[in-house]
Each structure stands twice: as structure tokens, then as C-alpha cells.
């Protein structure tokens, strides 16, 4: 149980978290919202590139055992066809919302993604998760006394009836994206072609960074064929692969205020749907 004072203290903590633009109140009416602010709220919050930020020291960090185990858990789920990694990236990096994105440790969001995906895909129920969390908590109620916490599955389940994706079977022996080779038809662009990145109204998920949208660049490499992350992130397997390109941009054309050398460049990889030719 908690005391009345505990409850007030925790609610006071939660209330201090701010996640809105200071110029717009919480819970605005529709007329308070400009289109710029609307799209700024809708921006996929993993897209951090080129946002303003102060310099901070660059630090190393020891990895926690649970962080390594979280990585392993996520990869085991990919290996066995429960998800593809693009589903994890959306759930853990975008769907979390900005406070959790910036507020939790990096691998805590990987872990969040596992729980959320297993629930959303109906592999576990909320009660199964909650009961197990309580059980593990109680198992170590007296502290660890120097031990490492261990997983203790009660039995190994029969996985033969479990719903799985095709990716983990079709990728075998080839790898992803080589598994999609030959499926996209001829590439629309060649090395050296000038292209412009389209300014699509990208809601919910994309990996084409906002900082290159609308910018002109040059095809530096025709990369590979693959379904776009905008489809893979929802677990879609019925979409046609498309060509990806490494596109080179001049920094002096990307930024109004670029102060480095005039030949400095930036490259990023972009699927064909985001590009159109620039004569």
C-alpha cells in the first residue's frame, strides 16, 4: 500500500514534467494551433538530426547486464520471426512520445518496445505481464545480496503454433536486404543524377530525416532493394521492394549558416519514393 503522502509526492513529481511548447498552453483549442506547431508535434521524435543543442562532454558508459540481455531479447525475437527490427524502432523510438524518448535510458526503450509489441501482437496479455512483473519483484524482495538476477522460465513452450513473419525464413542464407534482390525492377536513378528530396506529409513513421526534405543532392550510390521502413515498421510483408540510394548533399546548401569548408558534404540513404529527378 501507499500512504496519502506518497501519492501526493508522486503526483507532484509527474506534474513537473513539461512536454509542450511554452508558447502554447497544455490542452489547446484547435484555433491556438498553427500548422508549423502541428507538424512539429507530429514529427517522429527519433529524428534528432540538426536540432539545436548545447555542447556536452562525450562520455563512455559501462553496459549493465540487463542492457546486454535486452539487446539479446530483441534480436532473439527477430531471429524467430516475431518482429522485424523496424517494428522495434518505431515502438521504442517514436511511439513512446518525447518525454520517454528523452527521459529514459537508451535500452529501457528497447525493453519498452518488447513489452508493447508482445501485447499489441497478442502474444501476451496485460495480466500475464503484470503478474509476472509482480512475481519477479517478489522473488528478489529481500535484495540480491551480490547475486545476479536470473530468468527462471517455468517450462519451454511449444512454438509450433506461434504466428511468425516470412522475413526470418526468406532471409536465411542471404541476409536482409540481399533477400529482396531483383524484386524492385530497374532503378529510377543512376550515380551522378541530381535529385530533390520530396516534402511528403510524413505522419507516424519515416527514416528520411526532416533536415534533408526539400533539399537537392546527387546520387552517390545505388544501394540495394528493400521494402521501405515506412512499410516494414508496421510488419507489412505484402509490399513491393524499392531501390535505395545514398544521396550526397553539400553542407553549404543544406544550411543557411554553414561555416565549414564549401566542399563539406553529408550523405544519407533514402528510398526511391522520397526522391524526384531534378533536370
Amino acid at each position: 500500500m501507499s500512504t496519502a503522502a506518497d501519492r501526493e509526492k508522486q503526483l507532484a513529481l509527474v506534474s513537473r514534467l513539461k512536454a509542450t511548447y511554452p508558447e502554447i498552453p497544455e490542452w489547446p483549442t484547435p484555433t491556438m494551433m498553427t500548422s508549423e506547431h502541428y507538424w512539429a508535434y507530429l514529427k517522429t521524435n527519433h529524428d534528432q538530426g540538426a536540432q539545436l543543442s548545447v555542447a556536452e562532454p562525450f562520455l563512455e558508459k559501462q553496459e549493465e547486464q540487463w542492457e546486454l540481455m535486452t539487446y539479446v531479447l530483441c534480436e532473439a525475437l527477430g531471429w524467430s520471426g516475431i518482429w522485424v527490427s523496424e517494428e522495434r524502432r518505431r515502438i521504442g523510438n517514436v511511439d513512446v512520445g518525447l518525454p520517454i524518448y528523452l527521459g529514459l535510458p537508451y535500452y529501457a526503450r528497447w525493453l519498452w518496445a518488447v513489452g508493447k509489441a508482445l501485447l499489441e501482437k497478442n502474444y501476451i496479455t496485460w495480466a500475464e505481464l503484470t503478474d509476472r512483473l509482480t512475481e519477479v519483484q517478489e522473488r528478489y524482495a529481500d535484495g540480491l545480496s551480490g547475486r545476479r538476477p536470473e530468468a527462471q522460465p517455468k517450462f519451454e513452450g511449444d512454438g509450433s503454433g506461434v504466428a511468425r513473419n516470412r522475413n526470418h525464413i526468406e532471409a536465411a542464407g542471404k541476409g536482409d536486404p540481399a533477400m529482396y534482390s531483383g524484386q524492385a525492377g530497374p532503378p529510377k536513378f543512376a550515380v551522378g543524377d541530381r535529385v530533390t528530396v520530396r516534402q511528403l506529409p510524413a505522419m507516424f513513421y519515416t527514416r528520411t530525416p526532416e533536415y534533408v526534405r526539400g533539399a537537392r543532392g546527387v546520387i552517390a550510390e545505388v544501394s540495394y532493394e528493400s521494402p521501405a521502413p515506412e512499410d516494414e515498421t508496421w510488419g507489412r510483408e505484402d509490399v513491393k521492394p524499392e531501390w535505395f540510394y545514398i544521396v550526397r548533399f553539400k553542407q553549404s546548401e543544406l544550411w543557411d549558416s554553414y561555416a565549414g569548408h564549401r566542399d563539406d558534404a553529408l550523405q544519407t540513404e533514402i528510398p526511391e519514393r522520397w526522391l524526384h529527378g531534378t533536370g
Partner: protein
Amino acid sequence: MPDHDPDHDHHERTVKPMVDEITDFEVLEIALRELCIEKGLFTAEQHRIMTEYAEQIGPTPAARLVARAWLDPEFRGLALRDPMAASKEVGVDWLDPTGFGTPSDFAAFKILEDTPTVHHVIVCALCSCYPRPILGNSPEWYRTPNYRRRIVRWPRPVLAEFGLELPEDVEVRVQDSNQKHRFMVMPLRPAGTEGWTEEQLAEIITRDSLIGVALPRPGVTTNVTTRTSPARRPVAE
């Protein structure tokens, strides 16, 4: 975890590595792993194999690859033309351990060759895409919004913070690794290493020089940043 012990402030518990209690993160990881195995989503054997794989990855093969490329022009050609074949020569099979690679890092690897007039540096501004199979886990700073926000737009000032100031006539080329390709930099062989063996060269090819925030230098075998925040229960060595 709420609903357990009213006398404790549970939210301080996750930040203060003082008491020997299980953390909320550990509870969640263990609960999810147990449920996955009981539901048959993956096998305990798959989990064990993936753990063994994850425990052995590190930057050593990447340094060997570059050292060999510096010494052997034919191997250098292979590294640039078919980097996954070159990786195999230093013991890294990009299809391990699943037969189709690690699900998060795919199997599309590219080595960016520095020249006297072009210097590369890698980032993933969207998450932390990194060539784990050949370079190990990314350093914490590589994952931070600080690095990811700034390196794409202010590369020279950020490189200077790592102590790397490049001449005006060298083009800085930032590679944002935001899709399925994983990238690594092949830095230039520095002067003062004439006659060195592959082992000697590999020692100065630091992880940071393969990310592109440092240059290999004779006598320097450590990464730029050595300040390390400790873990409560670190990965077993």
C-alpha cells in the same frame, strides 16, 4: 514497481546505485524473457546462442581489417568492393549467428575510405545504427542526442571537441547511417608507421578512428574519451 513497499521511494531506487535491490529494468527484462520462452516465441537455445554472440563482438576485427588493407593493396580492393567478404577474412561473418545476420544490423556493410582530401565520420541521427558485428556495441556518446543532433550540421566544431581539427582543404563528409547500410571509416595510414607489422598497426586503429572522430597516431592506442560512468551490475567480463 509500485504497490510493494510504502516506506521506499521507488523512483530514487533506479537512479541511486546504493542498495542491492533488483531494478525496474531487470524485473521487466526477466519477466519478458520468461514469458517469451514459456510461450514458445523463441527457444532457450536461441537465446543462449544470441547471448554468446553478443558477448564476443568488439572492435578488434575491424582494426585488423584496416591494418591488413593498409599493408595489402589487393585486400584493400576487396574491402572496398566487397566489405562483407573482407570481413570474413578477419573472422566476421555478417550472416552470424542466425544464418541471416543480426536482425537489427542487417547484412549490408560499406567501408568509407578516407583520402588526403576527404575525411569521413559516421552517425545515426535517428537511433544508433552502428556496424555491431565488426565493431561491437556503440559507445554511449554515439547514441546521445547531443552527438546525433550536432555532428550532421556542425561537424567541424564537434570533431574539434574530440580533439580533431582538420585542415580547410580536407572535405568533411558526414555519413548519416539511417537505413539498412552499416558504415565504417577506413582512415589513412599515418606517417611514422613505416615497416610496422599488421599487429602493430592494428593497435593504433582505435574504435574512435573507425567512427571518424579521431585519426590513428603512432603511440595512441586508446579512444579519445575514457571517462566512463559505472554500471550497477555491469556485463560480466
